[in-house]
């Protein structure tokens, strides 16, 4: 037993050596906080090589809320990659720095429809990074009805084979849109209706999933699931029976952005702008989009892509789809109401 531990210690030490060490003179530190697996490794490596004077510290989070909790606890970062509604929250919390857009080269590569979005008018605090829609991923061999409305998720024919998204905003959004309301509504009556319809749906729902919906859909474990378009594209690539649709009642269009925090100053701030400019480069954005598999808001990058990709409606939805999608806005105090309904739905 003692020997076992001793050998284990050696293994640990050996791994430390493997991880290597290095060090050159750096004048700036860039503390980046991003989703896991949300940047092309080569892109990051290239940035490090091009800028040896910048020390890149790269941390990862698994949800917007986890990121916010860490920030609220007092941890400091320079660059964040939050989602739309979280950007709005961060603006309210006064954690973000106003961007000097003139310092971001290649900014004109970004498509116009992604600038000046409702959660950050004028792009004062963020530039878009990745985007997509929310819709229904369904298995064509298991679903014989047309999938064009959220109603199908309430269809008893598919009881026990329906997967909803395990987040209060996304599930409420589905219910609200089905009832014809806005995903950002603060009307108590509308919210109660939505909550009731979700409660009524619960017996039909197999599970509320987030990322594990992907493998369930790929191996045919469920007939339909509410997913993000990027995940849908991935799943369709792994299983030809799958298809994706954004219902006619409309849906949510989501945008993940990049921001600079208030705690980023001086040399680090210069480094931050260098990084943002780098991300907006067409080739870099293309590489990121191809690696991650989500749609890029960078029009110049889109131009460089294969026609097949450009024509894919899941990746590059036509304008009429975009017109019926809404971006999430922060709900302020109403969030407690949303969450309370969600707790009740889940508690029973």
């Amino acid at each position, binding site marked *: 037993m003692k020997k076992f531990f001793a050998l284990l210690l050696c293994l640990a030490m050996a791994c430390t050596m493997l991880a290597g060490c290095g060090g050159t003179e750096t004048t700036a530190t860039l503390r980046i906080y991003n989703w896991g697996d949300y940047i092309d490794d080569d892109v990051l490596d290239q940035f490090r090589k091009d800028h040896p004077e910048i020390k890149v510290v790269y941390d990862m989070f698994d949800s917007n809320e986890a990121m916010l909790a860490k920030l609220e606890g007092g941890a400091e970062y320079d660059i964040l990659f939050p989602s739309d509604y979280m950007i709005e929250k961060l603006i309210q919390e006064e954690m973000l720095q106003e961007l000097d857009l003139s310092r971001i080269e290649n900014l004109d590569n970004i498509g116009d429809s992604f600038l000046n979005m409702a959660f950050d008018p004028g792009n004062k605090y963020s530039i878009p990074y990745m985007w997509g829609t929310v819709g229904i991923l369904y298995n064509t061999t298991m679903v014989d009805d047309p999938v064009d409305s959220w109603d199908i998720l309430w269809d008893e024919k598919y009881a026990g084979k329906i997967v909803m998204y*395990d987040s209060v905003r996304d599930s409420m959004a589905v219910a609200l849109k089905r009832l014809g309301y806005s995903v950002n509504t603060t009307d108590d009556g509308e919210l109660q209706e939505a909550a009731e319809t979700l409660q009524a749906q619960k017996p039909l729902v197999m599970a509320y999933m987030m990322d*594990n919906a992907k493998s369930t859909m790929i191996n045919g*474990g469920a007939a339909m699931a509410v997913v993000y378009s990027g995940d849908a594209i991935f799943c369709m690539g792994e299983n030809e029976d799958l298809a994706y649709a954004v219902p006619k009642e409309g849906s949510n269009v989501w945008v993940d952005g990049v921001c600079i925090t208030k705690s980023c100053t001086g040399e680090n701030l210069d480094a931050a702008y260098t990084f943002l400019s780098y991300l907006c480069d067409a080739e870099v954005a293309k590489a990121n989009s191809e690696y991650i598999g989500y749609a890029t808001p960078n029009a110049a990058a889109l131009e460089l892509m294969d026609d097949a990709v450009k024509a894919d409606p899941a990746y590059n939805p036509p304008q009429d789809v975009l017109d019926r999608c809404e971006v999430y806005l922060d709900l302020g105090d109403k969030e407690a109401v949303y969450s309370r309904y969600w707790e009740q739905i*889940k508690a029973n």
Partner: protein
Amino acid sequence: MKRSVFATPYLIWMAIFILVPLGIIVYYAMTAAAPDGGVVFTLDNLIKAFDPLYMGILGRSVWLAFIATCVCLLIGYPVALILTSRNFKKGSLLIILFVLPMWMNFLLRTYALINILDNGGVVAQFLGLFGIQNPKLLYNTFAIILGLVYNYLPFMILPIYSAMVKIDHGLIEAAEDLGANSWNVFRRVRFPLSLPGVVSGITMVFMPAVTTFAVSRLLGGSNFMMYGDVIENQFFFMRDWHFGATLSLVMMVLMLVSSFIFRKYQDDDSGGMLW
């Protein structure tokens, strides 16, 4: 020198890293965010924590944890017994085999478990041979308990094993010499001596199981909110750290009080057994 002085390093550690954070939790639990940005002392959160919605969820979590603990005990006790019997000389190394699965990342092994229990998975196929179609093995209470047992079984086996190993074989031989058969040897020698380990195991499984959230979310399909989920919700989505702290505090107090009563009962008993 008094032996209790050995505990001093721990007591200092405990003061800094357990009691001070506890103080922070109590502080948060007793206050709420004031509209102007500061904090105001209030007991509203405490009252809210006892709302039937939350108490119901706590009850369910405790119940599931209890069942999981029982199953762990039923499965784990024989394992420890067998490993310490005379047939197994390498018990101390074998025990690592029972712990090793826990060294694989939790998410990964849970996804693998889902894969196995899924409708197209191995277990479903096996049951299909017996004519059982579409077994509902996932996204329900069964799956949650299975997941809890899977993740906590080694924590039950280890303490029981530790208590049983090095049971003076002289004692067992003496009992056998005095005419006891296998069953009586077990009932009167091994079982009583293993009890401290059993109590330890129950503690180390039940307590963390009550506040588990990942298992219920992944294996339960997030169909049932557990107490751990509710607390997590407060910190992440509701961003009400105060209420989150309150819920945690309430649960802590309830659990500690019940464990206190349980230990009082157990202490009286075991005192008689050892002397």
